[in-house]
């Protein structure tokens, strides 16, 4: 077990492109750190640099107090779980899990003892003599985990380990991974593009974009206090709604009405008091059907529901807002990552689609109008230039 420190770590390819730029990251002993971001953001490259599978172009990588830039993967004492598991197909599960110990010249009795212990933790005991080809996807995934935990390494590195599982199994294995990590208390760096995995698993989450870390924080802080537009848009599902807004004196003018700056925000709002354009971010759950909660404070307006999705416990209501469309590099990148750039609902003309999470008790109907309420004290405001948050210190 050990701390991992990245100090100004950069990965530059021979053609000059930088996959990872000046990344600083301190991962504490026993911490579960998630690297999350859209594809191509450099998260996997960063992980592979920690593993020693990629050279570090600049900066220092320190594991357990020792600079390991020049050490090969075998000298770093780390274990890695690959996205496609990378099980050795010619070896049984037992040999797969014991391979590292065998290379380390442990005696056979000790290898067997540790492999069987890991198999017990992962519920693989009855599969030890089978070959990977005869295992199901979930079992292969567990073998890959087992191969990492038998070694008792300084750190686990996981590269999207659950992305090849089907949805239901993924949720199961997610809790499994969490349970194992809490039990072993081994420093873990976990790469994923799935923000739900990031939010549920990590002690802390590092959101990356274009090789740069945008924010490192606890899942809760990332959700409630995103430092920029990108983090706000990336974390949360359905994602945060962004609307063009204007700050005038003590009021915020939103496409569907004006509201005084709430006290909660006034203290934090920077600026010189001049009127300025901003981007307002509102999470879906901060909307509500005003008829369901008549006493709640907030901005009230009428909305014409275009699509209604019922989740049973809640409703997702989609409605269009005139003159609310916002353009920003960060948001188009998020849209591109979700393969949404071609959808007509996203950025057509000047209307912006907004999604609201309503109580199941709401009487909203598709095509009908509803009295909507926006709880403005949770409103996030961002600078249209650069996307920095105006509401988070």
């Amino acid at each position, binding site marked *: 077990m050990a701390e991992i420190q990245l100090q100004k770590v950069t990965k530059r390819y021979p053609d000059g492109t930088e996959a990872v730029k000046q990344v600083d990251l301190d991962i504490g002993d026993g911490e579960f750190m998630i690297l999350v971001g859209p594809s191509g953001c450099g998260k996997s490259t960063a992980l592979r640099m920690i593993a020693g599978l990629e050279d570090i172009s600049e900066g220092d990588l320190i594991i357990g107090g020792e600079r390991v830039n020049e050490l090969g993967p075998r000298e770093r004492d780390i274990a890695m779980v690959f996205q496609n598991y990378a099980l050795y197909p010619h070896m049984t599960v037992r040999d797969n899990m014991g391979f590292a110990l065998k290379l380390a010249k442990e005696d056979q009795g000790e290898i067997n003892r540790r492999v069987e212990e890991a198999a017990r933790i992962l519920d693989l005991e009855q599969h030890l003599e089978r070959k990977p080809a005869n295992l199901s996807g979930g079992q292969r995934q567990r073998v890959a985990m087992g191969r990492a935990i038998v*070694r008792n390494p300084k750190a686990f590195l996981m590269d999207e380990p659950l992305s090849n599982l089907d949805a239901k199994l993924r949720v199961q294995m997610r809790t499994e991974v969490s349970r194992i990590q809490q039990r072993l208390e081994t420093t873990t760096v976990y790469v994923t593009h799935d923000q739900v995995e990031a939010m549920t698993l990590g002690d802390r989450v590092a959101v990356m974009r274009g090789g740069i870390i945008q924010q490192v924080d606890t899942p809760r802080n990332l959700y409630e206090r995103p430092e920029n537009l990108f983090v706000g848009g990336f974390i949360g599902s359905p994602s945060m709604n962004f609307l063009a807004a204007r700050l005038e004196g003590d009021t915020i003018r939103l496409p569907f009405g004006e509201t005084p700056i709430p006290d909660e925000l006034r203290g934090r709002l920077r600026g010189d008091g001049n009127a300025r354009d901003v981007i307002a971010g509102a999470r879906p759950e901060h909307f509500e059907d005003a008829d369901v909660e008549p006493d709640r404070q907030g901005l009230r307006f009428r909305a014409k529901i275009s699509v209604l999705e019922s989740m049973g416990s809640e409703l997702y209501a989609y409605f269009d807002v005139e003159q609310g469309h916002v353009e920003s590099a960060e948001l188009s990148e998020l849209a591109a990552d979700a393969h949404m750039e071609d959808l007509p609902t996203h950025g057509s003309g000047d209307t912006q689609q907004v999604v609201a999470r309503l109580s199941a008790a709401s009487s909203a109907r598709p095509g009908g109008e509803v009295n909507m309420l926006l709880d403005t004290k949770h409103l996030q405001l961002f600078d249209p230039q650069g996307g920095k948050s105006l509401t988070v210190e």
Partner: protein
Amino acid sequence: MEAASVSQPTQAKRRKKSGAVGSEPRTPWWLWLAVAAIVIFCLLPFYWLINISLKTGADLSGSDIVPPSPSFDNYTSIFENANFTKALRNSAIVSLVTTLLGIVVGSFAAYALARLQMRGKGILLAIVLSITTFPQIAIAAPLFRLWADVGIYDTLIGLVIPYLTFALPLSIYILVSFFREIPKDLEEAALVDGATHFEAFRKVVVPLAAPGLATTAILTFIAAWNEFLLATTLTSSPSARTTPVAISQFTGSSQFEVPLGTQSAASVVISIPLIILVLLFQKRIVAGLTAGAVKG
């Protein structure tokens, strides 16, 4: 149009018929006939060889399909011939050494070509492969002069070297494609597990490329075992002569008799190791060993 509408009912009938027998479509009779024809076509010459090898004396000039008085005299006589047994030994040594060196050198070279980042990789592979297009006859005479000067004329090593030259390009080419198939993640997993690059190669890559290695080994062995042209050019005495050359130099009881019986018997004998080899390696040659390595 008309033909189609006429053929439809018969097709439907046939489908019903096969459906009644089982879900598997039945192999049509003409396919079996074709298979039988091909098998006979391929095996008849070998049968004839065995047929002749069991005949002696006057029977040899006959064309009986079954030897009238089969005897193993030809077989006993070739094994009493010291030149033949010596040649068998030479052939075994030359073929095995060529195969072994070919696999070791070939797998190293192929791995480098498949994995390492280097410039001119494609050109290098093309040059290597172009060697196989050289006609052997073109290098036989120069090689004879060169080997005589160097002093390895009429030695076993003098045969191993040119055999390697001709065997390696194909071996490398086959192995490169096998190594490319092996997911790079497996090697990286081995490296993270604490293996050196060579350990990763030996314990993960080589076992997975085993079908490819078996294929190249068997091709190299067969080529070296059967080779005649260079063997006859580069040897002059029984000490280095290989079996194909030795068989060609069998003599009959008189100058005018062709030693057909003994030659056939010897040919049958030298075919046996090849048949055994192919049967042994057959299972390994069947690919699909990498199944289950990655998500599939």
